[in-house]
């Protein structure tokens, strides 16, 4: 295929890209993918972006005007959006550390289980909630959080007697958002554990052996070998989990009392589909505002991560 004779000349002249016949096959093979990608990924981004600069209301599409940054202005000044952004941060701050630390502890313990079958059984059980549809998980927890006969209070109050009062989980303004966050932690525990197990598995066992010969204790092994080598995967996972800042679904199905779970993501959905004239223009502005802030988060996380790698 390569033109051997002309190679010398080609390195001196800038390569002109020519689409030859044989290239068409490649394009044909990716055509369906590209078509769907453009239709359902590229176009929606462009459309919603332009939408955010108009006063587009879905129930009254006529007379939509271009209004520049007015939506963004309104969003920034809206107490609902501000509260929603704070809730998003709160949710992230509760979910990410809790999910990662729990998964880490379990993964470390599970990794040391030598009995192959038992380890597999544990893994399978932890993984069950991930196979369940999210909606089912959230609805399930909605029931579990019912103070009177829900499972949570049944276990904590009636059986284990760890608490004396029956907390109103979703019904109390302070507990609602953490309760929702815990739902997600429960749901993805197995998934997170699995990812960490993969990371743990990639650590060379010989390192452990060498350290053991030198007399290191199990705790020292964990602290000085396992954790540092796990750091890259751990940090990548944490960065990826930043996306929960934009959470919508759990509180759509299992909302807390009043406005306690009105994250900005939920509020944008609410403005676009649930309330009033369905102000999609405004909702898009909220969405992009949140996306912008999330990008800033991710960027700083990434910088921090890069420094650590060195």
């Amino acid at each position, binding site marked *: 295929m390569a033109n051997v004779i002309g190679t010398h000349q080609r390195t001196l002249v800038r390569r002109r890209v020519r689409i030859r016949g044989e290239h068409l096959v490649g394009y044909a093979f*990716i055509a369906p993918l590209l078509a769907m990608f453009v239709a359902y990924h590229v176009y929606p981004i462009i459309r919603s972006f332009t939408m955010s600069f108009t006063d587009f209301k879905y129930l009254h599409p006529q007379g939509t005007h271009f209004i520049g940054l007015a939506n963004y202005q309104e969003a920034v000044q809206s107490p609902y959006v501000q509260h929603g952004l704070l809730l998003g941060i709160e949710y992230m701050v509760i979910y990410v550390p809790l999910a990662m630390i729990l998964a880490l502890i379990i993964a470390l313990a599970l990794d040391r289980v030598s009995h192959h079958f038992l380890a597999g059984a544990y893994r399978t059980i932890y993984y069950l909630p991930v*196979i369940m549809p999210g909606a089912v998980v959230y609805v399930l927890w909605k029931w579990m959080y019912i103070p009177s006969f829900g499972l949570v209070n049944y276990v904590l109050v009636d059986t284990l007697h760890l608490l004396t009062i029956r907390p109103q989980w979703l019904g109390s303004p302070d507990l609602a958002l953490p309760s929702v966050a815990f739902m997600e932690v429960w749901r993805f525990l197995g998934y997170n554990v699995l990812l960490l197990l993969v990371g743990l598995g990639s650590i060379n066992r010989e390192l452990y052996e060498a350290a053991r010969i030198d007399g290191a*204790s199990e705790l020292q092994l964990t602290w000085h070998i396992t954790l540092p080598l796990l750091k890259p995967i751990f940090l990548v996972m944490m960065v990826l989990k930043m996306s929960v800042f*934009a959470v919508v679904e759990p509180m759509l199905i299992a909302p807390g009392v009043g406005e306690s779970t009105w994250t900005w993501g939920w509020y*944008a*959905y609410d403005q676009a589909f649930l309330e009033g004239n369905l102000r999609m223009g405004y909702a*898009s502005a909220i969405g992009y505002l949140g996306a912008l802030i999330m990008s800033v988060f991710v960027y700083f996380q990434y910088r921090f991560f890069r420094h650590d790698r060195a």
Partner: protein
Amino acid sequence: MSSRTLAMGQSNHGRLFRQGLRYAGPLARHALLLLFVAVILLPLIWVIASSFKSIPELYRVPTTLFPTEPTLTSYVFVLTQVPKLPLYYENSLVVTSVSVVLAGIISSLAGYAFARLDFPGRDQIFWGLVISLFLPTSITSLFAVYELTDRLQLLDTWLGLILPYTAAALIVSTFIMRSVFISIPGELQDAARIDGCNTLAVFYRIMLPLGAMGIVVITILNFVNIWGEYLLARTLTYENARTLPVEIALLQPQTGEWHFNTVTAAYMLMFGPAFLVLVALQRWFLRGLSEGALKF
């Protein structure tokens, strides 16, 4: 072992303690693991057990986990009183199956092209696709997708769900299929070419069979994700094309005769079979996930 000579400065107490700790270690480990097994399993057991309770037993205070007089009344209720259940089942099945098959075909073709075919812009396009995964635009895109679906008059239809589901599944599936095809030795492709196969034949006769493992994995992955998808389904359907997850979320405790036992019976009927199938297949699923994770 216990007759090891002590070096200078070492004491016997520390070593005995450590030997004891050797057993404490695994014990503590399994205690911890079992604690979380309980945390994971209790809710599931509660749902299953509650579906077999009768109404008086359901609301008895203090509540019990397991029913003392199990009954099937709630199942009967759901099966006879919910005329639309087969419809929702059908919707979920059709939408999920078609999306999964479509995604499998398209991502295999594209994955192969990215892995083994040569054309200008190939790598740029591919990494452009991957980057799009990380854009935080899922919420805003939802609005535009709704409008698009409405304009195409596909609201509350099967196709209206199939298309976005397939599109959403394609990128990760293509990524995985590309990895699968890259790992197949290139000599096989060359040998087939020499034998006179054109690209499509190479793909069909050689790559697909060898890449079958990857296809199985992404099929299961996509099935699980699409079967349980809620947000898009809730937004894009009303009644005709409603899928199971949305219906489940709408079964409120307050609506008329829906008590917790009937609600849980409904869950069992709606998701029980699929859940069992997925548990049986979970080994493939876990493998697919770890392969996908490793690539990332």
